[in-house]
């Protein structure tokens, strides 16, 4: 008997982990908008983004999770903190907040909530928008599948969209440089 191989990959993607991560994300999201100190908000946002990366892992998409950690938690949030650190926090905390948009906010939240309820409730004919059962992709070759979708000669259908998106980012970078530099 080989006990090292006996439990054949017990599923990690259990309901418990989903609710845990979802709770972390929601609490983090609430903290982002309620903290007055911008650095605390940024740290709550980082927690939210990391929990989101873990949710991607639960969906058997490790590549997306890795990219999420590198780009959002490791890259963009560092730049956010970099900028926020240079603001005088004491002064911003004394300032009166003038973004009083409760009505618009409540309307948007109610619309979104209504949409969610509409999506998740079964229609009268018994059909839901989501199929029963779970997709069980093999986790092992997620990266290779993403690459095949993007670049493969036979199956690569998203190559053009991918390149156009990267061109858009390049244009944004050049625009930022042109706006920042007085003389090029």
């Amino acid at each position: 008997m080989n006990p090292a191989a006996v439990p054949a990959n017990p599923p990690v993607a259990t309901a418990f982990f989903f609710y845990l991560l979802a709770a972390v994300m929601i609490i983090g999201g609430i903290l982002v908008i309620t903290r007055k100190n911008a650095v605390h908000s940024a740290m709550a946002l980082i927690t939210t983004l990391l929990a989101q990366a873990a949710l991607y892992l639960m969906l058997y998409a490790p590549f997306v999770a890795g990219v999420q950690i590198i780009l959002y938690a490791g890259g963009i949030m560092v730049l956010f903190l970099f900028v926020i650190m240079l603001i005088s926090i004491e002064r911003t905390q004394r300032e009166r907040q003038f973004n009083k948009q409760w009505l618009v906010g409540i309307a948007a939240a109610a619309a979104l909530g209504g949409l969610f309820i509409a999506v998740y409730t079964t229609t009268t004919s018994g059909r839901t928008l989501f199929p029963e059962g779970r997709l069980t992709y093999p986790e092992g070759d997620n990266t290779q599948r993403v690459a095949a979708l993007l670049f493969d000669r036979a199956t690569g259908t998203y190559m053009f969209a991918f390149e156009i998106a990267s061109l858009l980012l390049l244009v944004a970078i050049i625009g930022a440089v042109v706006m920042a530099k007085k003389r090029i």
Partner: protein
Amino acid sequence: MHGVVQYIQSYLDSNQTPGAAGNFFWATVYILLVFVGLSLAVIAMNWLERKILAHMQVRLGPMRVGPHGLLQPIADALKLLLKEDIIPAEADKTVFWVAPFIVVLAAFTVFVVVPFGPTHAITDMNIGILFMLGVSSLSVLGIVTAGWASNSHYPLIGALRSSAQMVSYEVAMGLAVVSVILMTSLNEASTGTLSMIGIVEAQQAQAQWFIFKFFPLGLIGFFIFAVAMVAETNRAPFDLPEAESELTAGFHTEYSGFRWSLFFLAEYSAMIAVSSIAVTLWLGGWLRPFPNALQGPTWDLVFSLIPGLTFLFLAGMTFYSTVRMPKHPLFRIQTMGLAGFGAFLALVGLILFIPGVRIRVQDIFWFSAKVAGFMYLYIWYRGTFPRYRFDQLMKVGWKVLLPTGLALLILTAVVAMRTELLAEIRGAWRP
């Protein structure tokens, strides 16, 4: 008793990592082993760094606590634990408290995927190298928040420098890593891999370490990574975030006691982590040296004896030092301690000669030996290079390493494509 032996044997003979087998208990054992090994390595590194730096500067280094200062790291650790933990009155308490833990977590979590051997890794992820780069890049968050939360000028400047430096060098580092991932795709199926174990297996299958692949392209990629990894870990000559002549101690100026020791621990384990990335990607990971020139069962046997011989050599050196200890009665306990340490090293060396142990441990030994080489390089850099100025640092990162990395990536892609097309024409892959 026999059942227990058989049970342990079944784990030792398993040809999977504990993560792949999904065995929770065995994975926990591996995590504890890696954690303990890492802490011991940091302690050893602390002593070695002081001794080697001292000898480079024609000094003796620590000599008082224990024979040849061997117990100095333990004395230092005790001192740090007993010190008062000071939090500045104006500091942001919560963030100040959390920051060292972010750095330590980021530095230790990456070891989940480090492959010490074909089965000696906690787990093997499909996104191994991406995970390592991503999680180790999280440590900059800890450094930035530590500098900001101290609410003091030197730490803030140190944190700003650190974040600018780490973000800049990550780009060049990533380009060098991508060129290696292109090399892994040169096989029958022409699919590459990001998995750390997969990268080493690709080097084994192609019978070539990636540092020698497409000469000199692999070498250039390795060079870019070797420079970027020193900058990434904030070590000399790129230690501007903690340049003591300008910023006292940079981002951890206001930290003391246990929290400061967490930063210290994180810095050294991050150094070990990036060195193990370099070893895995370019230097063949756990594979032994000269797999092509010196192959065959005889050479395999000779190379499997080297781990034991290394420990015996160290034991011999220790006994030589024991004989040279002063004969004064005050030194009697120290001499006995050193002799005991030598006996311990000799015992480890002898255990490593047992065939069963020898076979299972040699890949861990080769991996650790290569990483140890990088650790020595770190100390050597610190002993010899003067510190960069900040504008020079940015110039090296953005104007030298980044364009070289981009050119390297394009050239590697072209050469790899050529190899692939040639193999298609020939109809077969030759190793």
